């Protein structure tokens, strides 16, 4: 197993470094602990706009010059804005590691937020909101989030048209000044680089960047609404999403929830694929997934089908929600657990995946979690654990969203048509 170092730099950055000597690339992620949930209510869309504009100019270079500098070392980079954090990830050949970090430091420490770039990115964000209307599943997610998470954690990173139009360069600069400092940064590095060197590189280029106080690690309240909502849209298919509260990533029952999810949708032998698609031919796409903001967990089922079959599909989905604790057999649980464990090993052969896993461990657990520990917890899950988990996390308060040409008309009576659950 690789040696994983974890700690805090004097400047306040939390770091984790996994040294994998035989890899051919280095991946690193810089996570800033602020996201859409950190935005002022009248400035929705601000965090993503900051992320989009950070690389459009620094005190030393124009946006294009900065991009050219990254490309000169062939750095593959992405950035993203979520509910609670913003991430900047990069994969590069080992010999360019320090320069890649240095360029990130320049981008995050000395952005100029040029006026024209701000104006254009505000306009582009508005156009992206329009484009979202042509992506049914992404639109369904956007509509579902405020229902299951409430008004703060349920925000969409793109914001709203009205709030986007208010945003100015001063807003971006203010957000950056408030949230971009070492005390809010968590760094993960994976690849053929010694921990001491990796830590030294970050210390050299980020040392002295803002306050050292550790911030941004608080949890935010979730406000779940049990409801059934239809959003009319002229589509070929009806999109159905069902959500209910689960457990957070650090909860002792999280491995049990992972196994439950695997039973529902871990592979093609999972219950949803088998019952809704393979036996009945009702859908092409059906899935179950979880989301775990810090301090909360949410389970989802989703499917899309032609309107005339949506009631039947909805009933079939509900049946799977209801019968989760029935008929469970050991082989089904074993398959679910094996699927998760094997996937960690196969995907773990890529440096980028290992980096994403380490970053996730640091965010949720505040420490690297050895693979053996995760595997042992998963392999210890029993059928009784799943039954207990399902009893303690009942599916009697569902949030149901349909997006498409018509609402559900004869859906299972156990789901209330407004607000009350079943």
């Amino acid at each position, binding site marked *: 197993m690789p040696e994983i170092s974890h700690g805090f730099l004097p400047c306040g950055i939390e770091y984790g470094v996994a040294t994998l000597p035989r890899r051919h690339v280095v991946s690193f992620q810089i996570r800033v602990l602020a996201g859409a949930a950190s935005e002022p209510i009248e400035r929705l869309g601000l965090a993503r706009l900051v992320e989009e504009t950070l690389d459009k100019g620094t005190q030393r270079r124009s946006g294009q010059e900065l991009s050219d500098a990254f490309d000169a070392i062939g750095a593959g980079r992405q950035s993203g804005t979520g509910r609670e954090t913003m991430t900047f990830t990069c994969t590069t050949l080992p010999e360019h590691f320090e320069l890649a970090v240095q360029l990130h430091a320049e981008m995050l420490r000395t952005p100029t937020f040029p006026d024209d770039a701000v104006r*254009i990115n505000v306009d*582009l964000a508005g156009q992206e909101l329009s484009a979202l209307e*042509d992506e049914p599943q992404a639109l369904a997610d956007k509509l579902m989030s405020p229902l299951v998470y409430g008004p703060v954690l349920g925000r969409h990173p793109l914001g709203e048209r009205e709030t986007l139009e208010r945003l100015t360069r001063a807003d971006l600069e203010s957000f950056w000044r408030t949230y971009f400092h070492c005390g809010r940064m968590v760094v993960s590095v994976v690849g053929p680089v010694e921990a001491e060197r990796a830590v030294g590189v970050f210390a050299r280029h980020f040392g002295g960047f803002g306050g050292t106080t550790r911030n941004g690690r608080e949890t935010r309240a979730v406000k779940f609404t049990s409801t059934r909502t239809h959003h009319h849209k002229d589509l070929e298919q009806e999109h159905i999403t069902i959500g209910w509260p689960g457990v957070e990533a650090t909860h002792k029952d999280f491995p049990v929830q992972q196994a439950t999810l695997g039973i529902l949708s871990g592979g093609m*032998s999972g219950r949803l694929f088998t019952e809704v698609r393979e036996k009945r031919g009702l*859908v092409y796409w059906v899935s179950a997934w979880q989301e775990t903001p810090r301090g909360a967990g949410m389970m989802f089922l989703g499917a899309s089908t032609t309107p005339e079959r949506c009631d039947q599909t909805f009933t079939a989905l509900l049946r799977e929600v209801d019968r989760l604790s029935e008929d469970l057999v050991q082989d089904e649980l074993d398959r679910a657990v094996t699927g998760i464990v094997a996937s960690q090993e*196969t995907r*773990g052969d890529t440096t980028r995946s290992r980096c994403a896993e380490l970053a996730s461990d640091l965010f949720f657990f505040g420490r690297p979690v050895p693979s053996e520990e995760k595997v042992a917890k998963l392999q210890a899950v029993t059928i009784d654990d799943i039954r207990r988990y399902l009893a303690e996390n009942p599916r009697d308060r569902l949030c149901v969203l349909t997006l498409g040409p018509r609402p559900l008309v004869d859906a299972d009576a156990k789901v209330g048509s407004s607000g009350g659950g079943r």
Partner: protein
Amino acid sequence: MIQTASPYTLHTLANGLQIVIERMPDVRSAAAGFLVRTGARDETPELAGVSHFLEHMMFKGTGKRTWREITIDFDRMGSSYNAYTSEDRTIYYGWVRKADIARQMELLADMVCSTLPEEEFKTEKNVILEEIAMSKDNIEHVTFDFLQEKVFAGHPLAWPILGYEKTVGSLTRDRMRAYFQRCYAPDNMLLVVAGDVEPAEVIEVAEKLCGSWKPAGPQPKRVPPRIRGGVDVLPIDRFKQQVVALTFPSVGASDPRAETASAAATILGGENSRFFWNIVQKGLAPRAGAHHLEYTDCGVMLLFGACEPERVEPLVEAIRAEARRICRERVGQHEVDRVKNKRRTSLAIEGEAPYYRLTQLMDDMEYYGEPRTVEQMLAEVDAVSAETIAEYFAACPIDVEGHLTSVGPRGWPKE
């Protein structure tokens, strides 16, 4: 330095099944996959969609396993598995822990000998009709299918991979079976295995599993299409965006200029490209890009963008301006170097994982007839220069009319 080159082994069974193995001693996993040389371009118009339908049917039962047993056996290994169909191939793969590679090969070899069970055929038809319905809600999918239909009109590359409701709806099991028996034969297939494996053992297992398969003999010869120009518009009110695409005849994947064409597309419309800075960052459209779309024997340079409908004219004007500029002015050395540097990193990333090597080896065998090491691929990247790009555009110009596809609420430019 990239040091990901791994030795590969080539072997052909007596029945014609080609086998390619790449040993990757530094990984903990292995991937196996069958490539069947059949896809949408091998179909007749009335059979449009049969290759893709067959891909679904391979999961539905064999002489040894029911559909349920096939999926259970994949999941018992914790395999990351799937299948997909393109215009010219159908691929089945599984990526597993290295200890499971023989089991994975056995399961894949069994599933491609499907019995095409009658009951499952009926149920799966509904699943595919749902897949077609889903694709119609995706404007990019709609645009791409429409573009292929018009640019390759009169040629099988014009059929959508999923087929049409009518052809899928009326397809009989007997007609599917005849197509299946002709195409799913060892002399029309390729087995690729990559990962921490022992080549001699892989060949031994493959011989045992596939050695008795009967060859089908020569397949109908594929003919390259004539690529059409013109303007085609598909007005659809319910979409919010207008998607436009300009296409120009280019070279196929087997052509030595293919790497240059891809690099040119990246300079025009990749990350940190001319389109990004001169179109997206000028606020004309949130999306604009270029892609070199290539098949073995033909290709097109595809320039595209999506925007709010009222902004489509300046978007297309800007795309055409960049197309003219890259044809008439030599690209800068820094632009070429930028693309090459990024390609080096992406090759190093792809060289890490058995599944990615598996797909690269399949491409190599189809396009070049032999596997390429990462070093060979890097050498081809290194050979790209401002001169080779200029020569490419002299032979395959994009400062001409080409073909314009427009899909969205406006009937532009025919309105």
